């Protein structure tokens, strides 16, 4: 815990968890905007989006926790970010056509919006959900502190979510096109992943 590389590594994990939390909520918030042209802004559209985010996060937590059991490493941690980044690309590139197809096939906008939320958000959000439990494993060294570290990580990740929500809804949508924001989020995730891998290699941890 006291060596400089250890300190660098742990700070990085907190920063990445914070960023991941922020990006998840930024995407969720944009979700309402993305779906509105096809499914409207009725209350069930938000219902669909929130349901899918909760489901995919819960699955992500489960898988992330499971993956952390054997040989946890910063490299694998970084992989989550890179895969998450790549899984955002279909949303940016094909979101429109996917919504078009679903709109044509499903008359009821409730199920249309639910299906589209699954298609667009389920995979990236599940992957991003793996970050938090995995980072607990990377940081915990003694069982006695596990709760404290988990608490600190929830704190950091949820704080990131709060800031991601606020920043996106207050400012980003005022300045940029939705796809520009999504592209930047994807690029940020990618760079987070590369950074994690580089530090992982440097510190051999």
């Amino acid at each position, binding site marked *: 815990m006291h060596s400089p590389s250890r300190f660098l590594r742990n700070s990085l994990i907190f920063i990445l968890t914070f960023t991941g939390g922020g990006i998840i909520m930024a995407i969720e918030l944009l979700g309402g905007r993305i779906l509105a042209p096809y*499914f409207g802004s009725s209350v069930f559209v938000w219902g669909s989006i929130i349901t899918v985010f909760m489901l995919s996060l819960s699955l992500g937590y489960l898988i992330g926790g499971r993956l952390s059991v054997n040989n946890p490493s910063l490299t694998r941690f970084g992989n989550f970010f890179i895969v998450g980044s790549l899984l955002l690309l279909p949303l940016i590139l094909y979101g429109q056509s996917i919504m078009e197809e679903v709109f044509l096939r499903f008359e009821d906008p409730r199920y249309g919006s639910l299906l589209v939320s699954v298609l667009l958000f389920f995979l990236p959000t599940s992957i991003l959900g793996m970050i938090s439990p995995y980072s607990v494993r990377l940081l915990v060294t003694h069982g006695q502190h596990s709760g404290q570290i988990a608490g600190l990580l929830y704190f950091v990740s949820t704080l990131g979510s709060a800031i991601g929500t606020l920043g996106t809804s207050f400012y980003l949508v005022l300045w940029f096109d939705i796809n520009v924001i999504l592209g930047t989020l994807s690029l940020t995730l990618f760079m987070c992943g590369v950074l994690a891998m580089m530090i992982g290699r440097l510190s051999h941890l």
Partner: protein
Amino acid sequence: MRFLKKIKNFFLILLLLNSQNLFSQGERFIHQERSLYTNIIVTENSERRCMRFTIAHHYGQNQSCQYLQEPEKLVFPYAKMVLSSLLIQDNPKKILILGLGGATLVHSYRALFPDVDITIVEIDEAVVRVAKEYFGFAEDSNTHVLAQDGRVYVKRAQLRGEKYDLVILDAFNGEYIPEHLLTQEFLKETSSLLSSEGLLVSNTFSTSRLYDAESATYASVFGDFFNVKMNGTGNRIIIVSPSGLPSENFMNERAMTLYPRLRRFGMDLRDFPILMDTNRDWNRNARLLTDQYSPANLLNN
């Protein structure tokens, strides 16, 4: 201590209620409910009954008002400005209205054209209920109301190949027009529902900070349109006619034949041809509203 606090709160609330009455000049709340989308408040004073979506009462916040004695007379200039589109298209057979409110426009068009087919799309079922209960709105074989999002309706209607002679955009929430009903894409979808002589009439605000972006967006899709403003109102009506805008002479002649029929609404149609303005009085560099960029309510703050 807690008890004292309660008493204090009670008096504070009393004070608040009283001041509300003071400011609204004998206005009574006759119905109040919180729907899925907004607060719906129906108030009444000695001469008129109104619907609004916000608790706080500022001038111009009412969505819709009706005179108690002469319900046909239009309270707000915006409704008269919408009706002035008859100068361009005087015989609509099928009308689509997005946003019901107190059903003012439905009543007026029904009174003028007993056989016209009117479809209203209103997202909030509670608004439909309140319009029926307090504003004399009724469905019949020619008047259909659908409780759904206007954008979704327009997209479906487009697929079905439906055509309307008049499409009126009058959807507001407590703040402004919903953001996905302001974009270039939406305007294109809506105009594809117009028949060959069809008109698109949109109720917006000239006082809003969105004026530039909104006007530039309409112009980018439609080119010239009539920009109707009147003294004494913050409303601005946009009239789009893809088949072409008529001359002032044409409208003056039409006003002469039509104005007696519109007198029942408390308006003189002959005052309107001169208001049909095509001057682009907005900042032409304003950023256009699209599905990718429509922070309407942020811009409007």
